[in-house]
């Protein structure tokens, strides 16, 4: 029973990481122009890590959990940094432009709201699940 449940979770994380990785890489490297290394490097790191973990989870490879842990940590840490920088930018622009900058606040807020599920919530859930897996494996 527990094994079936784990298998479903692995598939769910595999699919979600795959979608998140593809959306991120396509969004940054196909849709967004021109190239800007400040965005490209973290996006490439997160996207590649998520795709690797997705493939390994769905193919039930031996190193799947390790790949998932790396992908989750990379996404979680870079995600928190990106959200941190966006919020600081919002505070900066609000300070510079006052009421006039409300539209920028709204757009930046929307960007944060769209990012958080993929770069904070999903990797956090994966890290919690990995922790439970490890504690269950302990004698």
């Amino acid at each position: 029973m527990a094994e079936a449940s784990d298998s479903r979770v692995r598939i769910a994380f595999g699919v979600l990481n795959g979608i998140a990785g593809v959306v991120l890489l396509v969004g940054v490297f196909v849709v967004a122009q021109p190239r800007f290394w400040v965005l490209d490097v973290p996006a490439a790191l997160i996207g590649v890590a998520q795709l690797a973990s997705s493939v390994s989870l769905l193919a039930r490879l031996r190193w799947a959990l390790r790949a998932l842990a790396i992908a989750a940590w990379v996404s979680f840490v870079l995600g928190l940094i990106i959200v941190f920088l966006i919020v600081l930018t919002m505070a900066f622009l609000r300070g510079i432009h006052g009421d006039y900058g409300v539209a920028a606040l709204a757009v930046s807020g929307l960007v944060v709201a769209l990012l958080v599920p993929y770069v904070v919530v999903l990797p956090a859930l994966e890290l919690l699940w990995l922790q439970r897996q490890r504690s269950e494996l302990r004698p």
Partner: protein
Amino acid sequence: MTPRGLLHLLTAYGAVLALCSLLLFWCVRVDRSRVPRGPVLISIWQHGERKARVAATDESSAVRALLAEAAEPGATRVVEQIVDSAPVLPLGRLIFAASIAPARDGVSATYQGRTAYLTPDDLLKLEAYEAVLDYGQLGISLGANADKVLGPLAAELGTNADELFRHATFRRFCVERSSHYPKELGAADVSLDVVRGSVLNAARYLLHNQKRDGSFRYEVNAMTGDDEPGYNFPRHAGATYFLARTANQLHDSKLFRAAQSAAVYLKDSQTLRCGAHSCVGEGDTVDVGASALALLAYVELINGGAAEYHDAALDLAGFLRAQQRSDGDFQHIYSVAEQHPVDVQLEYYTGEAAFALSRVQRISGDARDLEASRHALSFLVQRPVLFLGGHYFWGPEHWTCQVLDDLWQRAPDRAALRFCLNWQANNRVLQYGALADRPGIEGGLSRGPFLSPRLTPLASRMEAAVATLSVARQAGVEPAELATLGAEIKSGLAFLLRYQYTPGPAYLMPDPRAVSGGFPGSLVDQHVRIDYPQHAGGALLRYWELEHAAKEQ
């Protein structure tokens, strides 16, 4: 990671983020509504150049400063008191540039114990606001051009820009100033007399900047008095149309003669053969826009008594009809070299052609002109029913609703009226209401938080808005919707009137008379291109016509 560990981590993260954001906000903000507390900057401007400046620490010394210089012929004494200031964070040129709010902030630099100031007037004069910042491959338009800001500050402090940037401390500041530009003018001040005066001033700008051959000074930089390169025939024709229309409506013979001179330039120097008809433009290809706007101008001239344009007008109408496709749209280009239409579409031209055909039909009496215009209007207002975005994304095309108005008595189109009302509802979302810390932009259209509103995109939307109001009144639209549209128009027109050069910040200009009556591009773009007075004056004239007729009735 355990749930408890995650909770602790996120709590700490949130606390640090909130603290850093608050500190950053309080560090960079300026309070524009506080009682002025900084030094008073007294400047003497003469012939568009700053001749002297004194920074007085108290008001009593400020009152006496530079009085002798102010008495010189052509000198203007401008007093600006610093209201509040905040540090510019020393985090590179991008942050430096982004720290200056366009049209509102000045910058000071303190270097080796001395302080130099660039006030908002200085930055306007330097054309330093809203420059495109090239950062890597990204081009971002915000704040100010760091090089244009640093150069004059460095020169004043006896060093170079790089040295200054490395070792000086910078502050942004806002000022309260004695200048009367922009004018303090609200929607309640938009009277018929004010509007009429403004239209005449806009038309006279074109009159005073017309050359002997009938062409115009295309784009004048008010800050330098110089001409920008280039010329555009659709815009020349549009300016001619506005001159002729103003002359007819406000009975000004000088303006009519100027319109005739501009039309002669089109008819005799810029008319080519495009198949069986004539067309307007130059080179191997021409566009439909120049011919459409020339046709509008010819029709106005014929209405004013210049019957010699009759045949030319009908010939251009034939050209436009020949360019129309079966779906109502037009082929916007004609290859003069190869003598065939080129089926590509560009912004505005379909609306211009439809409007011109509607106008000329009153003279030609040709049912084909009316049908072509009606068909084009129907094409222009088609919105895909199942595409959700079609209800929320709107372009700047502003001729469609003028076609609606012109056709309404002959071929009423309720779908087009709904389209125009919806478009104006969308424009109202973008229109600034009253902002406590920035009263000058009320009525303007937002271009996003980092850029100042531009005048011409608003003006062209106001042309369409007044046309929509005219039809909405005839069609019996709900009074509440009429009132909302009317309020939008008055607010928009007040914004335009506020920034018209009557005379504008004349002390910053080497030749204020050359741009008198013109409308600038934006709050920070002090150029006058021929289409700026055309559209702003056109919107005001439409409003004057509509309300004047209503008053007469």
